[in-house]
């Protein structure tokens, strides 16, 4: 990257630095590693980045988009302040959404604030609230959305054609998406005009100990979803790839990139094989990354992912559409770094991680609430997450310059290094048979568990510091903070679903469920024509419950633990 004369001058400075270093510290080494275990030096200079081709860095908005998807990053495309609002019941969730709107929640330019709602654990796993496995778990993490009636309570009356709906739903994605489509169309907004993102996490057995559809079947199921949305819901992101989850479950930044890219490659190949044009479906893939404790490695891995993805889309899938090569990113601060002990410390962790997310050019950002290690957020905790972003946006001047850390010898070196290591790991995965094989053998999870265990041991030994947990410990009684709690949620939700079933025309529901089964079986048989989403929408309209529909999916696509 630099000419010989310049490098000569640099080396002269390095030599002088070494002299001064030796005078002060002798032969003592100051060794450190990044969160991923990459060894780092105490200082970086132009010689460390000399062999990087400047085309790899380029300008913001220019291939390979290392510095951002657009020529301007935050100046013209403000990041969306994207916080999940899910709490207990759809009505309490709606209340929280309205409250955050009043406090200045912002969507993308021209859009209303995003409606970001997942479902509780029973709903995510496809059990109705009166199923025995749901007991004691209803409405704890997020609301239970078991019927279209609950979705009406959540979303009706909102300007749904101007809202990004982030639908966190695992394998029930077609059902919750179906409920949303039905509610939108009831108020006259056609599905073609809906914006949002499906958070389906079909690949979650890479890191999460939770059953899912069989690996091969989930690729068919989700390819059918992509097929349908590409044709009929062109503004809806068909899936979000949660690199973040890999970090949360104990993986490192290199694993984060390589593992999740292998999943993206698997579903993309499946879609291409089904005859869907990558220039049309890849722009609707969303990327969800982590800003965690290692400040610079978080930023480096976000920048590295942007260029890795651009090259994969162009070179591997032959994309011509630049939008298909741009990884648009939700950055999420790392709840796993938040502690139950001294919970107010989490505000500081969240602020630093949010700054990393903004410096790295996140397109939407979620600052995790400081009481994350305790429960679903109180209003105050969530508002403080929002204020963190508002203070950085409006007071610090940070968003005035695109990718302001570019050119940092350390950051550019680290970006390149993370890419190099992740590329090598991705190659290794492909050599082992790719995503399907590696998920079926449980390889990913074992690798992540080893990494998590390593971290746990180093915290237990005090080699890794967690302030307030293994260092600077205080009396816990003095740190109590209010915790969000709701009463009677389970009773209310069970009564509602029972009334819902009593009041419906069961013959009609059963007919729709039979058609859903038929459509599911055709998908499992390899007919990927995008007919399963409309069958799900019809079943929702005929008042089928989430549990009833998921039972059919589980019977057809399997429900397995690898």
């Amino acid at each position, binding site marked *: 990257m630099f000419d010989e004369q310049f490098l000569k001058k640099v080396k002269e400075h390095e030599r002088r630095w070494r002299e001064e270093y030796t005078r002060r510290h002798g032969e003592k080494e100051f060794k450190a590693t990044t969160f991923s275990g990459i060894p780092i030096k105490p200082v970086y200079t132009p010689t460390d980045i000399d062999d990087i081709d400047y085309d790899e860095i380029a300008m913001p908005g220019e291939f390979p988009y290392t510095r951002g998807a657009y020529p301007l990053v935050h100046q013209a495309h403000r990041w969306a302040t994207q916080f999940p609002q899910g709490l207990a019941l759809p009505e309490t969730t709606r209340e929280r959404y309205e409250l955050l709107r009043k406090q200045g929640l912002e969507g993308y330019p021209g859009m209303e604030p995003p409606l970001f709602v997942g479902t509780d654990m029973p709903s995510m796993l496809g059990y109705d609230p009166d199923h025995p496995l749901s007991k*004691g778990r209803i409405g704890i993490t997020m609301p239970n959305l078991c019927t279209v009636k609950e979705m009406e309570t959540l979303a009706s009356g909102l300007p749904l054609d101007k809202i990004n709906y982030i639908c966190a739903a695992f394998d029930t994605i077609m059902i919750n998406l179906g409920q949303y489509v039905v509610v939108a169309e009831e108020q006259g907004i056609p599905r073609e005009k809906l914006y949002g993102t499906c958070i389906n996490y079909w690949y979650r057995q890479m890191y999460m100990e939770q059953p899912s559809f069989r690996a091969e079947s989930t690729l068919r199921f989700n390819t059918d979803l992509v097929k349908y949305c590409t044709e009929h819901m062109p503004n809806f992101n068909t899936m979000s790839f949660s690199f973040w989850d890999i970090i949360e479950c104990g993986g490192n930044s290199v694993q984060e990139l390589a593992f999740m890219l292998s999943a993206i490659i698997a579903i993309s190949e499946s879609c291409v094989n089904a005859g869907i044009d990558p220039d049309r479906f890849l722009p609707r893939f969303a990327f969800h990354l982590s800003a965690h404790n290692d400040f610079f490695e978080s930023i480096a891995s976000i920048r590295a992912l942007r260029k890795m993805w651009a090259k994969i889309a162009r070179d591997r899938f032959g994309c011509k559409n630049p939008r298909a090569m741009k990884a648009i990113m939700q950055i999420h601060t790392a709840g796993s770094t938040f502690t*139950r002990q001294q919970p107010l410390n989490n505000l500081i962790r969240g602020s630093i991680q949010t700054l990393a997310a903004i410096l790295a050019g996140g397109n939407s950002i979620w600052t995790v609430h400081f009481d994350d*290690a305790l429960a679903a957020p109180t209003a105050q905790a969530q508002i403080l997450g929002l204020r963190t972003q508002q203070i950085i946006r409006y007071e610090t001047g940070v968003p005035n310059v695109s990718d302001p850390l570019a050119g940092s010898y350390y950051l550019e070196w680290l970006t390149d290094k993370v890419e190099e290591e992740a590329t090598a790991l991705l190659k290794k995965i492909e050599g082992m048979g790719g995503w399907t094989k590696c998920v079926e053998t449980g390889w990913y999870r074992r690798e992540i568990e080893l990494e998590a265990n390593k971290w*746990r041991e180093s915290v237990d030994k005090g080699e890794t510091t967690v302030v307030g947990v293994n260092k600077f410990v205080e009396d816990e009684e003095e740190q109590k903070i209010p915790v969000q709690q709701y009463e009677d949620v389970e009773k209310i939700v069970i009564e509602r679903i029972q009334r819902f079933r009593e009041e419906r025309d069961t013959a009609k529901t059963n007919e729709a469920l039979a058609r859903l089964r038929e459509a599911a079986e055709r998908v499992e048989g390899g007919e990927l024509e995008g007919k399963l989403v409309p069958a799900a929408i019809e079943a929702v309209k005929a008042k089928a419950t989430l549990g009833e529909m998921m039972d059919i999916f589980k019977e057809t696509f399997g429900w397995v633990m690898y």
Partner: protein
Amino acid sequence: MDAGMEVVYSLYTYPEEVAAVAVEEGVDVIGISFLSFGQLTDTPKIMELLKEKGMTDVLVIVGGIIRDGDIPKLLEMGVARVFQQGASMTQIVDYINEQTA
């Protein structure tokens, strides 16, 4: 084998399964981790089933995301000890060794 103990692992499952596995394997300790709640409904059920099966001397410990207010309730149900978020592996292993010595 972990920390010198033989570990039988079972996932997101019914209280009946937990009790059945415990009996079948003749375990000394049952550790139940709750990450998305269920501790106040599943734990009493498990304790009752263990009692029915005559496994009264098994050590039951609970961990995961457990609210402070739930601890006295769990202890009342017969849980020996609750480990909240941030508990170290060493703490848990030492406690088990001490109790089963």
